[in-house]
């Protein structure tokens, strides 16, 4: 099928095919299609040796998609003395819920729209659009906080991922930011937290990397709810317009020994591998 494509279409059009990219293995015969075997006549007049068409190099996007693994952070068990059986039982329930209800992949900094069932609303459903500023909790009690500014009032709602009251979670814009926790948006100018409630979902192709928005946010004048300039918060996404003296003073609270503390190390790579395999197998069933 791919070879037939290579014969029928010129090379430039072939690049537009979704999922498959064809590059000719041999250097250019200009735009000309290869003739079929029946009318092969070389310049000598003698029947020419059969030259097979160049093998198309297929870059399989599906494999690339599978290689990019995303394991939702609430699957990774916290460090402690609990029996792994308890996490296994909880994971079974989480997978069961995911089979019935689709929880999409999203990160802190992506814009989501969540519809929940509400007995006191008209239509009995409530839709809220906002940017995800925090993902907390492990296991079934995992939560995420969405923030938006509605009619000048900042609103943050904390939703439980596995609550049966959520009817739908759609990702309107899938992107990452420079930090894992965007609580500083409370002290940033409101334009950085406003998102249109009727926003159209921005399409994201499966094989592309998740874009990292390197936006540096401008803050309201101090006092802030937390001293975000201090190194313990390690925030990269704020454009600090504070004087140099204040920034240097904030570095007094730095704890440079923390990154070398071996007791705080928690290597989750092997645990993630095992859980990824388990979750994938269960979801495919």
């Amino acid at each position, binding site marked *: 099928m791919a070879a037939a494509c290579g014969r029928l279409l010129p090379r430039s059009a072939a690049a537009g095919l979704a999922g498959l990219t064809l590059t000719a293995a041999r250097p250019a015969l200009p735009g000309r299609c290869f003739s079929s075997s029946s009318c092969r006549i070389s310049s000598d007049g003698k029947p020419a040796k059969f030259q097979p068409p160049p093998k198309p190099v297929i870059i399989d996007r599906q494999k690339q998609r599978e290689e990019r693994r995303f394991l939702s952070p609430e699957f990774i068990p916290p460090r402690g003395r*609990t029996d792994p*059986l*308890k996490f296994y*039982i909880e994971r079974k329930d989480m997978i069961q819920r995911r089979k019935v209800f689709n929880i999409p992949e999203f990160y802190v900094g992506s814009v989501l729209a969540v519809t929940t069932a509400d007995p006191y609303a008209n239509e*009995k459903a409530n839709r809220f659009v906002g940017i995800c500023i925090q993902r907390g909790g492990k296991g079934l009690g995992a939560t995420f906080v969405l923030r938006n500014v509605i009619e000048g009032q900042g609103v943050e709602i904390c939703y439980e991922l596995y609550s049966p009251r959520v*009817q739908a979670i759609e990702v309107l814009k899938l992107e990452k930011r420079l930090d894992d926790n965007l609580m500083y948006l409370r002290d940033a100018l409101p334009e950085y937290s406003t998102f249109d409630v009727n926003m159209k979902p921005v399409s994201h192709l499966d094989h592309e990397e998740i874009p990292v928005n390197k936006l540096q946010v401008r803050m309201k004048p101090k006092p802030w709810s937390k001293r975000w300039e201090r190194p313990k918060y390690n925030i990269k996404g704020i454009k600090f317009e504070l004087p140099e003296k204040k920034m240097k003073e904030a570095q007094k609270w730095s704890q440079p020994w923390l990154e070398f503390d071996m007791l705080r190390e928690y290597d989750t790579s092997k645990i993630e591998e095992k859980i990824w395999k388990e979750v994938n197998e269960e979801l495919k069933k």
Partner: protein
Amino acid sequence: MRQLGFVVRHVNSTTWWHEHLSEENVQFLKKITAEEYKAQTASKLCPLKDEPWPLNDWKPDSIRVGVVAVKLGMMPIWTKSGKKHAVTLLKVQDCHVLRYISKEESGGKTSKLLVGGKNASPFFKSESAMKIFKEAGVPRKQKVATFNVTDDAIIKPGTPLYAAHFRPGQFVDVTAKTIGKGFQGVMKRWGFKGQPASHGQTKTHRRPGAISTNKAAKVYRGKKMPGKMGNIYRTSFGLKVWRINTKHDIIYVNGSVPGHTNCLVKVRDSKLPTYKDCNKNPPFPTFFADGDEKLPEDLYDKEIFQFTDPSVTYA
């Protein structure tokens, strides 16, 4: 007469179990006991060879045996109306009945049944301590609990007990040793208010203040004072059972339970008069796994939201 313990030196003549054994023998013993334990726990029948004891029917007055379980942790669950509740997972791990003590023998009002929990190593206890376990044909247990039982609910020693002994919708009492906090002051231990942090207080911020009156001229017995807090047995009453997992023997019990994670707890049917009607017709005297009853893997209470259902809507 002052104690002269520091003058007399004790000669410790005890040995540990493998001091005089060769390496090979130690490995062999360990392997043998592991296999023996597996065989004993896997057999669902009672290991003792005499006839089974008579099975009676449940009456409203009968009190049946409880179970010894391991506290695994806590988890949220949701009801069909969308409300969230926190539940504790209790795993019934290798629970066997150890001994039957009749009313006359114990000297109490009812007969007693000794029940043992999680398996433990047999090598670090004396022969006399291991006697009970040997007589029942059961591995050595980490915790032994006593249950007061009516005479129609007695069970033969050696029978295993499972989580299916309880059913969703019934109420239980859970007893365990609370987390030990050590020597604590009066504010944490008894909830006293202490004194203000400033305004002239000299060295007095967390002290009890006055301990008695002038007229009493003494301190009453039981006065709340600083001391060791925690590490005592306490019971949570009237906890609802939401769900039972028969494959892994886990009971999902409403609310919190005293004790740290992986501690052993004693679970029994609730004695509270409000729940007398909810505990009707339980598996009596216990749930026998070798019987004909085949239970599904998960038993749910009717209020609970199962994750196989679609999301909750308020129509």
